[in-house]
């Protein structure tokens, strides 16, 4: 009875408590290891085996559709971040790499700051570099696609590492995470067909893994008052469909995969054109592989050896 009386009445507080409880379970089982920073974890080999299994399933689901498969690092040119309009829409999530490479940099001042009582003050001597942390797996792809697309458009499979500055005790909200995407570039109809086909494939794939999922109309967390308008526009045009599953908090399912229409947003900025000379439309499906792994751990338990043999086989565990 104690647990019942201690249960917070406030739903938001209950969700927070469930986030903390699931994170603590994951850490106790050493599936993830704490770094002391919310949302940044070291990952066990057991966790990575699940992720590899998911990646292989996603690749199989899109087999034969992609012209090429690319693997992106965590860093990208800062210029790409700027050209995607990300700083305007998501300034709070952005990360730019700072460095001490300026020829006029004062090393003595840096050492003095480093040795002072306020050790962190040495970072005040750093300056923003031309590098940014990758905001979404598909962003570094667009500069490589400048020019004219084939008549049927093009699909590229992308394995990307991403960063979002949003510390949280929710283990599903990582600051450093990966997205496995299939990106389409071509005309408007092709973009919609790609997006819609992938919603079906994603629901089927997650269902085979025993997850209770649903596809919902969603919006990105655009920043500030202007973000309200962007989010409302995105929602009213159904540009973003998320596949959600319960992870830490059953009452607040988490997006584990999302399928998005970008309209001409990237095509215009990056000079990508269809074979008929129109500005290209783009669309992507992104699988949040860590989140899917966490949804599986939540659904089937933290001991992988106890999972349903069919699911273990799907994931080659």
């Amino acid at each position, binding site marked *: 009875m104690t647990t019942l009386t201690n249960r917070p009445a406030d739903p938001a507080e209950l969700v927070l408590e469930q986030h903390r409880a699931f994170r603590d379970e994951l850490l106790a089982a050493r599936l993830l290891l704490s770094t002391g920073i919310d949302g940044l974890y070291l990952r066990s080999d057991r966790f990575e085996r699940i992720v590899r299994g998911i990646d292989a399933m996603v690749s199989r689901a899109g087999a034969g559709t992609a012209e090429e498969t690319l693997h992106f690092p965590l860093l990208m040119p800062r210029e790409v971040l700027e050209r995607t309009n990300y700083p*305007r829409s998501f300034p709070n999530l952005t990360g730019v790499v700072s460095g001490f490479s300026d020829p006029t940099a004062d090393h003595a001042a840096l050492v003095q700051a480093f040795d002072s009582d306020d050790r962190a003050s040495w970072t005040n001597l750093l300056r923003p570099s031309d590098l940014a942390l990758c905001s979404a797996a598909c962003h570094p792809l667009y500069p490589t696609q400048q020019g004219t697309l084939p008549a049927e458009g093009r699909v590229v499979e992308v394995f990307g590492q991403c960063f979002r500055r949003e510390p949280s005790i929710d283990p599903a909200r990582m600051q450093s995470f990966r997205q496995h995407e299939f990106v389409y570039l071509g005309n408007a109809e092709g973009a919609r067909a790609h997006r819609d086909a992938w919603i079906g494939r994603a629901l089927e794939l997650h269902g085979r893994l025993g997850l209770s999922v649903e596809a919902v109309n969603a919006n990105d967390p655009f920043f500030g*008052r*202007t973000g309200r*308008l962007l989010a409302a526009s995105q929602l*009213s*045009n159904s540009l973003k469909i998320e596949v959600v599953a319960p992870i830490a908090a059953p009452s607040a399912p988490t997006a584990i995969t999302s399928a998005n229409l970008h309209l001409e947003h990237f095509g215009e900025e990056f000079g990508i054109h269809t074979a008929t000379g129109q500005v290209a439309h783009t669309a992507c499906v992104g699988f949040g592989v860590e989140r899917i792994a966490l949804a599986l751990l939540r659904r089937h338990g933290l001991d992988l050896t106890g999972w349903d043999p069919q699911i273990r086989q799907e994931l080659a565990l």
Partner: protein
Amino acid sequence: MEREIRQILAAHGRLGVDVYSLDADADLYRNGMTSHASVNVMIGLEEAFDVEFPIEMLRRSTFESVASIETALNSLTATLAG
């Protein structure tokens, strides 16, 4: 007011057509205004008319035509006057 709205649309709306010859009820989004451009229009309107759109007005429909923008601004200035 309508002329000033059109000036702001010309400056920020990135429309594919001449905004001064558009019908007041014409759908601005259908005439090329992207959602990012509509944000700039919103900021431009707030500066020009010295108002702040409340959260419930930050919807696509508020900015969808010259007429809908005028209605929204009128309701804001009426609120201020009242």
